[in-house]
């Protein structure tokens, strides 16, 4: 069995008297797609925030390729190859779509004094344009990010996260704020584009149809603990998951009884 790309050991996070994460032990192998599910306040985003450096765990360790990254700032973790998108899209609203991606590509490829080189370099523009094509946002190339629809903004947010060529990508509710009809097409675009990068993908999602369709494995959270870690077919039929996450029996192909 290959060594895990990401190994989370005995992770705890307390906010005063509230326990947001408790004794989380989980590892991820390269290339797998993992769905993180749980009711609101179950600890999903806290888990993502600890891995990406936004929150420092109260105790425990996070190892990326056997190197401890616990408590490193987000920029250092991003530099190592763990990037993320956000529940509420985090883009540069005053910049065009191209400039957003150019900034992301340039930061990833211009360490140190390279940051003093012009932003609009042909090789960077070419890379940014390739990413735009893959994420189907090339039509909005010169449009300001503030003028984009919710769906296009989500795609830009994810495209920016992968612009630096990460090894692990965490997507925090990629379909939140998107209409029911748009969810599946958006996820098709995202997963198709991500397939080319052979990433390890962890995504937080509330829509069980999306989870069932796209992931290899499900981590279910409840009150800060992982209550199930199994393939989707098994996880979505787990009694605890049905009681504490889905809120009823899961019907294959969507919805719950």
């Amino acid at each position, binding site marked *: 069995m290959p060594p895990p790309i990401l190994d989370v050991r005995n992770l705890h996070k307390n906010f005063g008297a509230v326990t947001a994460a408790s004794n989380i032990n989980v590892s991820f192998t390269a290339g797998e797609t993992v769905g993180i599910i749980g009711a609101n306040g179950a600890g999903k985003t806290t888990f993502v925030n600890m891995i990406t450096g936004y929150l420092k765990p109260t105790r425990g360790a996070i190892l990326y390729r056997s190197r401890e990254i616990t408590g490193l700032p987000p920029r250092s973790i991003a530099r190592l190859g763990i990037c993320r998108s956000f529940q509420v899209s985090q883009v*540069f609203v*005053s*910049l065009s779509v191209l400039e957003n991606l150019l*900034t992301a590509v*340039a930061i990833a490829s211009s360490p140190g004094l390279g940051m003093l*080189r012009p*932003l609009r370099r042909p090789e960077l523009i070419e890379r940014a344009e390739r990413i735009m094509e893959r994420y189907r946002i090339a039509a909005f190339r010169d449009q300001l990010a503030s003028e984009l629809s919710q769906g296009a903004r989500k795609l830009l947010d994810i495209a920016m996260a992968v612009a630096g060529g990460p090894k692990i990508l965490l997507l925090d509710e990629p379909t939140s704020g998107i209409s029911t009809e748009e969810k599946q097409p958006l996820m098709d675009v995202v997963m198709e584009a991500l397939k080319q990068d052979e990433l390890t993908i962890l995504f937080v999602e509330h829509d069980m149809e999306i989870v069932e369709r796209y992931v290899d494995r499900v981590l279910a959270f409840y009150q800060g603990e992982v209550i199930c870690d199994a393939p989707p077919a098994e996880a979505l039929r787990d009694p605890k998951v049905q009681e504490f996450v889905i809120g009823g029996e899961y019907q294959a192909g969507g919805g719950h009884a």
Partner: protein
Amino acid sequence: MNLVRDRTVQGLTLALGVMLIVSALVPSWIVNQLLFAFSRAIVVLGLLVLWRTRLVSFGHALYFGLGAYTVAMTSRYTGVNDAFALLGAAALLSTVVGFFVGFIIRRYRDIFFAMLNLAFSMILYGILVKTEALGSTDGFTIEQPTFAGIAFEDPSEGKLALLCLLMVVGWAVAVGVQAYLRSTLGRLTTAIGDNEIRVEYLGYSAEHAIHIKYVLSTFLAGLGGGFMALALGQVDPDSMVNWTASGELVFVTILSGPGSVAAPFIGSFVFEILRTYAFEWMPHAWQMIVGGTLLIVIFFMPGGLWGLVSGVAQRLTRRRPAAAAPGAGG
């Protein structure tokens, strides 16, 4: 795109050429006005860099004054009187102080960033006012400098030489800032203003980027202060370091607008003329005219004078093809 082909750089170069010729022909009072205006413009250029990151400093007179006092004190206590050495020392000292203060400042945003700078400048003001060896409330006078060993006996020739040096240095720093703003680091000015979190998650420290911008602005403020000291021939705490001096710099930044590195030069010149005439017309209420102008700019010209200039230029270039159309058909 090559910097030589940058339209702003081309415009600045053309303006420098014209101004070098014009400055030799204008009366000495205009030479003085240009000296004051362009000295301040260099400082405002630094504030423009901060403003593009949505950071406003109410205390850059700290570095402006440091630059000015470095020139005065170096000249007085070391006997060094060459403009190049004095200005170099002014820029260096303000940059070094800015570098260390920057470690504190870079952690703050919005009103805290603005007021923390003011707090530091007021400390310097207090020290200057209370210390006899630093000239106290009266300050110092400064001898006319030499220029790489060349001394001008006629003061007006000395002023003209200083103006030529100021314009060349002003051009160089404006081109430098333009190159910086086009760089990846420079483009982060807008990105950080929009969304610091995203910058961090892309792998770059927003605080580090702000620190660099801050140090750049302190270098420019010190340099501008040094020029102002040489132009005035004296330094004093009230006109160099007091909070009103910082307010004036913010005023000129708003008047100029953040649209171009050329804007501070236009804005500073307009401010200098406005203040001079306002003072002449209403010696006891000139602030009313200056304040009224600021209100007009804020309400009707959010892009400052540069917004007005570029708006007119855009309208003219849009009209040209329309005017040419009938001829093309005929």
